């Protein structure tokens, strides 16, 4: 009747377990660094110092975290509906188009705050559209979204190469990218926030899309836990039978959920295209869509968990770059290995330490309650 392992108290479930996973991932990463012939302790120091030790590093960390909040939310929303959207990469790529088009159109005539709402809407719409097709195929034809979304990543990639090389590239330019946006297509940085804390943000591209990401976190919470639609979404995610019993229109929920998920992934493009590069470039998503899966897993698919998880991956990206820069034996690829280990432990193996932790808590709890009874009697 009961499960063999006791349940974890919420504090352990949401904080201790992810922490244990990350610590183990770091320990094994340390071994990798050691094998590569460098000092793990110094690498760790570089990682932390590089990402959190000075203003510009913090700015970059938060810039990367912004990407991962968007893609993490995208994966999380679909998770709650029982859908595994691994097409964040492609949806974000297409989202870039939704950002670039209003910028190219308006950047010379209006200030950024006029272009920005259009870019937000454009990125969300293009991302949603790219997720709509797999969503429709899942809902109406039963084609599994895991397969279709990953195929759509490749289609997105090819489509964007075509567009950048043949359509969007200015005449005579060599690089497959759009022209640089003028002031009306450039988001202001949030460097002043860091300056308020007495930090120097340097040239870090930490920009207003971070605020959009936080607003998105709030809306995801609101939609999933506080609306009728969210209720139906979660019901379907838990049991298709119960959803049919409750008169929920399965196909509609699947399609809408995929569109919301795609819109969130698409909005990731704001941060890069309008906040850093000021142009639409080849492969700008650079794996953020996939990191979103790990972020969502680690953040337990809840916005409150996704923000710290995204910041952790921001630290890995930024600090990892510093390690690669300072340590000759650690290349950029080695950093990917370390990130992979974190994903492995935080995501794929997230339940590895659960039984041990649960039994530790169970015996601790029993001892505590015995003491309480003894004291009471």
């Amino acid at each position, binding site marked *: 009747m009961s499960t063999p392992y006791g349940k974890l108290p919420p504090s352990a479930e949401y904080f201790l377990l992810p922490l244990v996973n990350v610590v183990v991932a770091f320990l094994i990463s340390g071994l990798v660094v050691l094998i590569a012939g460098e000092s793990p302790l110094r690498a760790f120091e570089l990682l932390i110092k590089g990402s959190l030790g000075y203003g510009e590093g913090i700015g970059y960390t938060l810039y990367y975290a912004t990407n991962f909040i968007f893609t993490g939310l995208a994966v999380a929303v679909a998770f709650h509906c029982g859908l595994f959207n691994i097409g964040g990469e492609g949806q974000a790529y297409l989202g870039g188009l939704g950002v670039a088009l209003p910028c190219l159109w308006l950047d010379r005539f209006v200030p950024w705050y006029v272009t920005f709402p259009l870019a937000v809407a454009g990125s969300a719409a293009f991302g949603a559209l790219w997720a709509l097709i797999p969503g429709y195929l899942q809902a109406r034809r039963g084609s599994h979204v895991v397969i279709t979304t990953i195929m759509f990543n490749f289609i997105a990639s090819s489509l964007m190469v075509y567009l950048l090389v043949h359509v969007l590239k200015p005449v005579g330019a060599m690089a497959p990218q759009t022209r640089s946006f003028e002031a009306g297509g450039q988001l202001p940085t949030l460097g002043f926030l860091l300056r308020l804390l007495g930090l120097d943000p340097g040239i870090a591209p930490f920009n207003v899309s971070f605020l959009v990401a936080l607003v998105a976190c709030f809306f995801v919470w609101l939609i999933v836990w506080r609306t009728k639609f969210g209720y139906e979404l979660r019901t379907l995610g838990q049991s298709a039978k119960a959803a049919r019993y*409750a008169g929920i229109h399965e196909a509609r929920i699947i399609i809408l959920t995929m569109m919301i998920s795609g819109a969130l992934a698409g909005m990731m493009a704001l941060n890069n295209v309008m906040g850093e590069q000021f142009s639409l470039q080849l492969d700008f998503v650079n794996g953020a869509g996939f990191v979103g899966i790990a972020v969502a897993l680690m953040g337990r698919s809840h916005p409150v968990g996704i923000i710290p998880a995204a910041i952790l991956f921001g630290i890995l990206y930024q600090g990892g770059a510093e390690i690669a820069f300072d340590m000759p034996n650690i290349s950029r690829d080695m950093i990917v290995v370390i990130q992979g280990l974190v994903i492995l432990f935080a995501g794929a193996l997230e339940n590895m330490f659960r039984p041990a932790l649960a039994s530790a808590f169970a015996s601790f709890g029993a001892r505590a309650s015995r003491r309480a009874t003894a004291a009471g009697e």
Partner: protein
Amino acid sequence: MSDIAIELKGIDKSFGPVHANRNINLAVRKGSIHGIIGENGAGKSTLMSILYGFYHADAGTILVDGEPVAIRDSNAAIAAGIGMVHQHFMLVENFTVLENIILGAEDSQILNAGIARARRTLKELEKEYALEVDPDAIIEELPVGLQQRVEILKALYRGADILILDEPTGVLTPSEADHLFRILDQLKRQGKTIIFITHKLREVMAITDMVSVMRRGEIVATRPTAQTSVEELAELMVGRRVLLRVEKGEGVPGEVKLSVRGLTVKDSRGVTMVDDVSFDVRAGEIVGIAGVAGNGQSELLETVSGIRRAIAGEVVLAGQPVAVTGDVDAGDLRRRGLAHVPEDRHHMGLILAFEENENTILGYQDDPRYLRGALLDIDSIRKDAEAKIAHYDIRPPDCRLKTANFSGGNQQKIVLAREFERDPDVLIIGQPTRGVDVGAIEFIHRRIIEMREAGKAVLLVSVELDEIRALSDRILVMFDGRIVGERGADASEGDLGLLMAGVAGAEQAA
């Protein structure tokens, strides 16, 4: 050698503030069947989990054959000769019987030798205990009764002398249960010791030699079965006198509220599950559908309640036709006054991962009462949930608790409260007391009778023949997708049993 197979001394176990087992002392004689009964949540399963090494007792000792043993995990339990047949089978569905039996006891990396050896051992076991089962059959193709037999064989193959069966008849048809009892009797005569956990009093009376009653984590009594009665056991279990028969007056049927004509339903493989079924249910009457599980009752319920599509037929709800062959919509029927307590509480009637209050709006999430614009009105939902908790005595009375943490009886009360409090015209109820303890059964039966008294049309499906006979005004018997007979409430068990077996039905059809 003592004649006590297994003895528990002073077993104590707490989960945080919950004292699940309190100073349990129990001695089970070798070669006997010892029943342990108690309501859901009385601590039976915890006790057995301790015996099988899933949990560790906070205090106390376990003696097997007079020797103290430390059961750290299930391997230690197996080594001590203890075998367990779980309530929910632990079988790999797409493996053969043989593969399942050697799973975890392969003895070597190369399977062939082990399989051949297992085949021989299995033959001997079959001969010894009359437990026939085709070793090459795939588990998922076997009926539930045979799957359970595989579980028993698995335990015997590992050399179990003490068999623990946890609610073994919960999933069985009456005839399969009878068969199981014969097997247990045979095992007993071969010297095996059996601990039989159940909350069904009749089974305890039918099969056990001794019976221990658990209540709130304690063993409150141990009696030789021959010297006790159903009434005494029920009282010991619940702690107060229990009415085992439902009191109900003469029904006053009104107009037809639900009319079904020529309903035919096929499943996804194209097998006809409901075959040209017609009946009416009137206001103020309970129509019971009896039958062995799997004869089309589930499909009939799902079709009438708008979850499954029919290929032919008509359903009229309170005078208005219902689309049964096109796009079905359970929500639409609900708005038109149909309430449905589904058979599958865990996957259909409730979302176990949700908080209790979230389940009180399942199916009624469109109700403006629960909404404030596009948002859910959380205050109103929780207030409503609390009112229902009070009205239906749902325990623990905490609407923020995860539904999975409620006992079976209380989970069912959550569903009943949601469906009954809507004041529907037509009520469709499937297996109202499956997996529900005795105290709650009485409560649920009374509520169903109350609904009839209030003039609702009630369609009841249950595989418990006693329940059908106790509640129904008219009884329809389903066999192989067809209604093979109709009887009054006074029909004898034997008469209904024949119809359920399809014997009388065949004559009638011919």
